[in-house]
Every structure is written in C-alpha cells, then in structure tokens.
C-alpha cells in the first residue's frame, strides 16, 4: 500500500511540475531560435551611418550573381523533389508489399548519409568524377562525368541531395505506409479494375499525403540551404553565392539569408496546413461522429 501511494504521489508531482517546466522549455527553445534571427534582422535593416533602411535587401537582389544562383537553386530544388519522390514512393511501396525482408537492409543503406559527413560525400564524388574524366577526352567515363557535371543541369548535385535526404524520407514514408492497411487497399483497388499506376495515384498517395508532403518539404529546405557539397563541386547555388558576396557586402548577404530563412518557414507552415488538410477522412470523420 505504502509503495502504491508513494508511486501515485510521485506521478502527481510530475504532473504538477510538468506544465511549468514544459512552458519554460518551449520559451527557451523559441528564444534560442528567435534571438539570433532577430539580431540578424536588426543588423540587416539598421545601418549606423544611415539609420533604418531596406537598402541591403535591394543590394543583394541587384547583385549580378543573384539571378543565376536563384534559378540554379530553384532548378535543383524542383528536380530533387521530383526525383526523390519518383524514386522513393514506388520503392517504399514495393518494399512494403513485395519485399518486406529487404526492409532492414534498405533502412541501413538509407541511413548511411546520416553518419557520413557531407564533406566526405563531396570529396568522394570529386575523386570519382575526376578519375572518370582522367580516362581522357571523348572516352565514355569522361563523357558521363561531364554529363553529370553539366553546369546548367548539375545532375550530380541533384543526386547528392536525394541521397542526403534519404534518412529522413525513408523514415517518414515507412511510418506513413505502416499506418495504413496497404495490402488490403491495394488488392481492393486491383480487384476493382485499377492498374498499378492508378492504385499508386488514387489510393496510395492520398493515404500517405502527410509523409509525402513532409518529405518534399525536407528536401526543399535542404536544397535551399546546402553549402558544403555545392561549393566542393564548384556550383554557385544560392548558399554558395551568399558566402561569396558576404566578403564584399556582409549586410546584403545577411539580408538574403534571412529571406531564404523566411521562405523556408513559410514553406514549413504551408506544408503543415496542407498536411493537416490531407489527413482528412479520419480526423474529420471522427469529429463528425462525436457531434
């Protein structure tokens, strides 16, 4: 009896302490994130000699390197998101339906990028591409190497970014597919006359919308912010360009990085709203049930 009551008291204490503690933690984390950004923002709009001004923002946009960096980054982002989803959604579905025994192996493979520093990935890529080019002008490996590094369409960067997002995307899609009765849904759709592509589009995707949106978001955030691989491979993406102008116009680079940061947050919020709307049936239905 004594034991039990002590236990319940302990439990109650935790509950009493918890709300205050958790609020303190939330505020602490919020400050940790917000303070540097606010400082950067203040720095970007207040020039001691000129007072408050948006000039640094305009300067950054006016920089001759900006349009090229922006369009390259956007192109890479779009290709990476499309490539990632086109690769991973069918793969994960196949894994769950037909090859569950391979799941642990794929999981490990997809986790490797998490433990390999991106500088190592970039250095490795550089070595491989160089040795391929070393076969001599016109040879097949050299041509492939050149194709991968096409300055207008850097396939190698898209590939690297897909790899870098795999650990998170694998987990997200894996969890999403576990929450639905995939096999039954797929088989029902087949028996109603739907082919594989139709099943994927009409049945599977709508039911894992949340994880798919999360994957896309994560991928976009990575593409907008990745520096190491891009600079090592010699591409002038937005983050690379930012560090380059930081030398000549520090305030402009800060304002641009704030813009990118704000864009990422806006995307995150948009995705959260979208995902919330995507989990419709169940949530909405349950609400309806109660009323």
């Amino acid at each position: 009896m004594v034991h039990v009551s002590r236990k319940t008291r302990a439990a109650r204490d935790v509950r009493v302490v918890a709300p205050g503690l958790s609020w303190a933690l939330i505020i602490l984390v919020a400050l940790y994130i917000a303070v540097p950004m606010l400082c950067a923002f203040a720095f970007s709009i207040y020039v001691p000699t000129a007072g408050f001004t948006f000039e640094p923002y305009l300067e950054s946009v006016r920089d001759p390197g900006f349009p090229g960096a922006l369009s390259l980054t956007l192109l890479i982002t779009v290709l990476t998101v499309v490539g990632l989803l086109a690769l991973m959604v069918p793969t994960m579905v196949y894994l769950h339906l037909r090859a569950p025994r391979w799941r642990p192996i794929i999981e490990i493979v997809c986790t490797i990028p998490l433990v390999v520093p991106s500088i190592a990935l970039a250095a490795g890529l550089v070595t491989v591409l160089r040795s391929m080019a070393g076969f001599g002008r016109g040879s097949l490996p050299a041509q492939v190497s050149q194709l991968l590094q096409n300055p207008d369409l850097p396939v190698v960067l898209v590939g690297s970014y897909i790899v870098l997002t795999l650990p998170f995307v694998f987990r997200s899609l894996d969890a999403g597919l576990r929450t639905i009765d995939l096999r039954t849904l797929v088989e029902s759709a087949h028996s109603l006359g739907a082919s594989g592509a139709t099943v994927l589009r009409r049945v599977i995707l709508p039911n894992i919308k949340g994880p798919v949106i999360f994957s896309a978001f994560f991928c976009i955030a990575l593409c907008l912010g990745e520096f190491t691989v891009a600079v090592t491979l010699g591409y002038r993406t937005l983050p690379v360009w930012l560090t380059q102008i930081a030398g000549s116009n520090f305030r402009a680079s800060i304002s641009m990085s704030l813009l990118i940061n704000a864009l990422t947050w806006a995307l995150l919020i948009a995705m959260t709203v979208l995902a919330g709307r995507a989990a419709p049936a169940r949530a909405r239905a349950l609400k309806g049930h109660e009323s």
Partner: protein
Amino acid sequence: MTLTATTAHPRSTTAARIEYTAVSKKFGDTTVLTGLDLTVEPGEFVALLGPSGCGKSTALRILAGFETASSGTLTVDGRDVLRVPAHRRGIGMVSQSYSLFPNLSVADNVSFGLVVRREVKARRVAKLTSLLDLVGLPGYADRFPAQLSGGQQQRVALARALAIEPRVLLLDEPLSALDAKVRSSLREEIRNLQLRLGITMLFVTHDQDEALAMADRVAVMRGGGIEQIDQPGVLYDQPSTDFVARFVGTTNQLAVARGAAIPDLWVPLREGDHDLLYVRPESLMFEEYDRGCAHIVSHVYRGATTRITAKIDGSISRGSSEIKVDVPSASVTELPIGIRVRVRLTGRPALRVEA
C-alpha cells in the same frame, strides 16, 4: 437491405462458372494447396470451410489474382485466368475488414471501380443510388469509412465490389470481425442478395454455422485440399471422413466391437478391435439408470434445446470420454446433474469408421 426494395439493381446476367483443376501452391518449402479440384456452377454459392491455415484464403487469392499458382489450371467460364492480371479479371472481392479507402467517401468508394472504368457520370450516380439501396445504406453517400460501424463498412465494401458487375464475387471471412448480432443478420442479407443477383459466390469461413447457413454447397478443406464438398444437409448427415464429422457440427465418438451391429443401448468398449460411431447429439438419449455407464456433469441452455453432457465412468481410451446430448429444454429437469444414466441410440450414426 430489405428483400422488398423495389429499386432497380444491377442483375448479373453473366454469372460465371469456376473450375480449379489440380491447383497447387507452394510458399518456399511449404505446400499450402495440394492439387485443389473445385467446380462452382454459375450462380452457385459455395463456402470454403476449414480450420485456420488450411489454405482457404490462398485458394481465393489465386482466383482473385493476388497469388500465383505453382501448378494446375484455373478457369472462369472455360477461360484460363491464371495469366490474366488481377485488375483485368473482373472478379469482385470483399475481405475481412478495413478494406474501404479511408480517404474517400462512401459514394467515392462505391464509384471507384466505375471511375477507373471511365463510366459516364449519370450512370455512376444511378448505380450508386441503387447499390446503396441494395445494401440498405441509402443516405450514407457522404459519410467517410471512419464514420461507419463495422457492419456498415462491410455493406459498403459489398456495394463497391458489386458496382463493377463482377462475374464472380469472392468473400474472405467478411463477417469474422463483426459482433455476433450483426454477423448473423448480415449473413442472411448476403445470402438473399446472392439469390437475387444470381451471382456466383465463393465464400471463405472458418465458422461452420456460417457455412452451413449460407451456402448451396460447402467444401470442407483440410491441409490444402478439399476433404468433402456437399450440400449442408448431406455434409451433416453423411460426412465422408472422421475429420468432416468432427469439424462440421458436434459429434460423439462411440466405440463398438469391430463389425458389430449398431446397438440400441451403448456401453463402453474397453478391449478388442473396435469401430468408431460418429453420432450427433440429437441422435442420442440419456435414460436415468442406477447401473448406467455415465453420470451427468453439465447442462448448457441453448434456447429451445439444452445440451447435456455426461462423463463416462473410468478411463476411456477409444472414442469420447464425455457424451453430449441435446434435449428439449422443457424436459431437462428429468436429468439433473449428478444422476447416473445409460446411453440410447435413437438415430442413425452420421459415420462409422474402422479405428
């Protein structure tokens, strides 16, 4: 779903004939189907009945196109279907549960097969209305699966499968996740629907009551093959093997001397060669008798009848050690627990086997 509903409904004019010939299935080293032979006539309702793991679902899934057969042939209306992909077979399927698309409303679920086939909207709407009437869910079109009870979900799944006017409808334990009351009412409704539509149905269950109550013929499966296939009454009265006798209905196994005539009064046989009689509880009677071979140990009230169990004295190495008899509930007081009884055969044993 009422039988008197007057709405037009899609009548399957093309009920198909199914023929499994020596269909085998191996998963790695395990043989799950051992040369299955089964013919289902057009418009017939056949139940596959057997213990869990005997290969019922596998047999069904091969026909639906979700598993391949290792050998054998399987035809629908004479045409080999084994190489046709699942989505081109035109075979409807209703599974145990949770098969509705959770992101789609009832209307969209039922219309799914029609949308996939690109049927025009007017026809889809008309069909949806008649199908929802047919399964007794008019006015549920805008609900989502999570807003429906288990029984309602299965009705929608049924409507969804029927929407494509399948040549064959397969049901894999569609009722086993439901509670007893819903189960028994849906049981009747599915049967009525099948009779009305005249559709060929293959129904999997491990519940013998379900199989006997619903099917034209019941195929009792065991270890990947069919042990016996017959009408429910024949299966019950004339089981062809001891497995069927034990699996379908309740039996008492009474040992008698090898080749001996069936006695009026049964006494336990404790030595010598013997045959086993498989006797239904309604084919036996207990009579109060001081020097009887058994004493009554329990009464189980079942409505009109009560099942009385008597334990045979001493150890019994052949046949049952307890005997179950069904008596009208009104006469139960004549056989209170504890009294000594003898066992009289009032009907023919369902089966006699040399043990």
